[in-house]
């Protein structure tokens, strides 16, 4: 009651100051239940550390796994953007890895730095390549190499100029 209660009180306080954004409170278990049934009802979720750990992995599972999920750690003095998948030592150095997670994390970094137009172009190119499905790495069901996938994205970025 006191720990999560304090968190909730702080959230409410900030919500009061930002009345143009809709604020809703939900229990963690209700969110989990609804997330697997209809995740489209959620927009931005703010939560304490442990719940965030669990829910972010849950949502990553819903969109395709950690191989395509970007993340960023923001502080007052700096920020680190990283992919949250493992180090995959078994495929290291073999040009097999899927660079999407790290690439999208870099896109987040560009947005953080205020370079949104660049971020937008790269993100669109990446999504287009995945949507077309011609050139995909093994984890997404394709048979292309990491370098081929990257080259395809670069081509799309060049074309979009």
């Amino acid at each position, binding site marked *: *009651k*006191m720990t999560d*209660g*304090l968190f909730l009180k702080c959230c409410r306080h900030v919500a009061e100051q930002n009345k143009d954004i809709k604020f809703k409170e939900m229990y963690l*278990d209700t969110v989990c239940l609804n997330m*697997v049934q209809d995740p489209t009802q959620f927009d931005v979720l703010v939560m304490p550390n442990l719940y965030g750990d669990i829910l*972010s992995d849950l949502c990553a599972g819903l969109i395709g796994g950690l191989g395509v999920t970007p993340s960023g750690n923001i502080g007052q003095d700096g920020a680190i953007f990283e992919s949250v998948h493992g180090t995959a030592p078994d495929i290291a150095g073999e040009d097999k890895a899927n660079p999407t997670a790290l690439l999208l994390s870099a896109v987040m970094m560009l947005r953080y730095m205020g370079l949104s137009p660049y971020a937008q172009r790269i993100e669109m190119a990446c999504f287009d390549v995945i949507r077309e499905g011609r050139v995909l790495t093994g984890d997404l069901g394709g048979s292309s190499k990491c370098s081929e996938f990257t080259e395809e994205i670069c081509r799309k970025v060049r074309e979009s100029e």
Partner: protein
Amino acid sequence: MLTGMVENCVFIFVQTVDVSSQADQFLNQWNQSCNKTSRVAASSSIIQHKKYSTEPHFSKYGGRTTVTALSGDGVGPELLSYVQEIFRYAGVPVDFEELEINGSTTDEETLRSALLSVQRNGIALKGNIESKFDEPGFKSMNVELRTQLELFASIVWCKSIPGVYTRHQGLDIILIRENTEGEYSNLEYQIVPGCIENLKIITEAKSTKIAKYAFEFAKTHGRKKVTAIHKANIMKLGDGLFLESCRKVASQYPDIEFNDMIVDNASMQMVSKPQQFDVLVMPNLYGNILSNITAGLVGGYGVVSGMNIGDDYAVFEMGTRSSGRSLKGKNIANPTGMLLASCDMLDYIGCNKHAELIRDSVMKVMSVDKVQTPDLGGQATTLEVIQAIIEDIKPKTTSWSTTAAQNVYSLR
């Protein structure tokens, strides 16, 4: 969170039901496993060293058992009334001792009456009681009931139901959750204004108890794998103790495969490849999260029942423990979860035939006749579902005696 060491074990078991012509198979399996489950529940006393009694007791008089009905908030009261109606049509030899307990009856007296009633009767059917999280001094009634009655195991059995469309099919996962310690120990204090410390308690005794229950449950139901869920990479001492206790118990069951998984990975695996899971054993909070995720995967709050089992008492409720505040009075709540919980209760007290009868009708109406409430994508109201179930039950009970005092029942 600080973690300490204490001794406790908890077991939880859950049952699920299947419907349709595969449903017939599903139902047969389910009914058989419910029989087994009631045996595991009753024998939990054998697993634990009990202080006074040796077996769970029921208050049975004149062939009729008395069960406490705790109303709860939201849709709890209306769903419980539907259960009583269906019991009447099915001729179930159960009387309900109704107790109104909800988020607005927060005094000690109400809680004490509720506890005494459950202790007297041994069994309860319960709606969820809302906890006001704005008042720090306010204790959660649900948690108080579970801890005071030492209902150490919470079991939610999530099984895919034919006729209920979900993304993943063919699921059959049992989630066994420690019910009385962990993050729900209710020990918080303010160190300085704006900084609060919360104590998460993990004890060897309770961890071992729940692990043992999980393995016994798996063994009784012929399950092949038990997975322990934890976050021992971060909470090295607390969850580490839980994991270690599970491993020690696992070594006594060489026929059952044991593995462990970190809770965030488990959440992700549950939404992408849930078929890999068989029986899960978890501490309190992770159990809450994963039970809700898995319940969502098989159809949501409406189709999953849950049970809280202790050495002496058992309390049955909806698997997701939702009060359904937004659905109250709208006649759209799904009564299936509560009805299945009441069938689990009937199995627990030995009324297996009645349980089978009601469960068959509930499943037939939901899966075969497809009379479904909006949460399952249907258009029916709660009342329509209940009436359909009653219509299905009626022909099955025509051979029963119609005298006023019906203490003797015969089933076709």
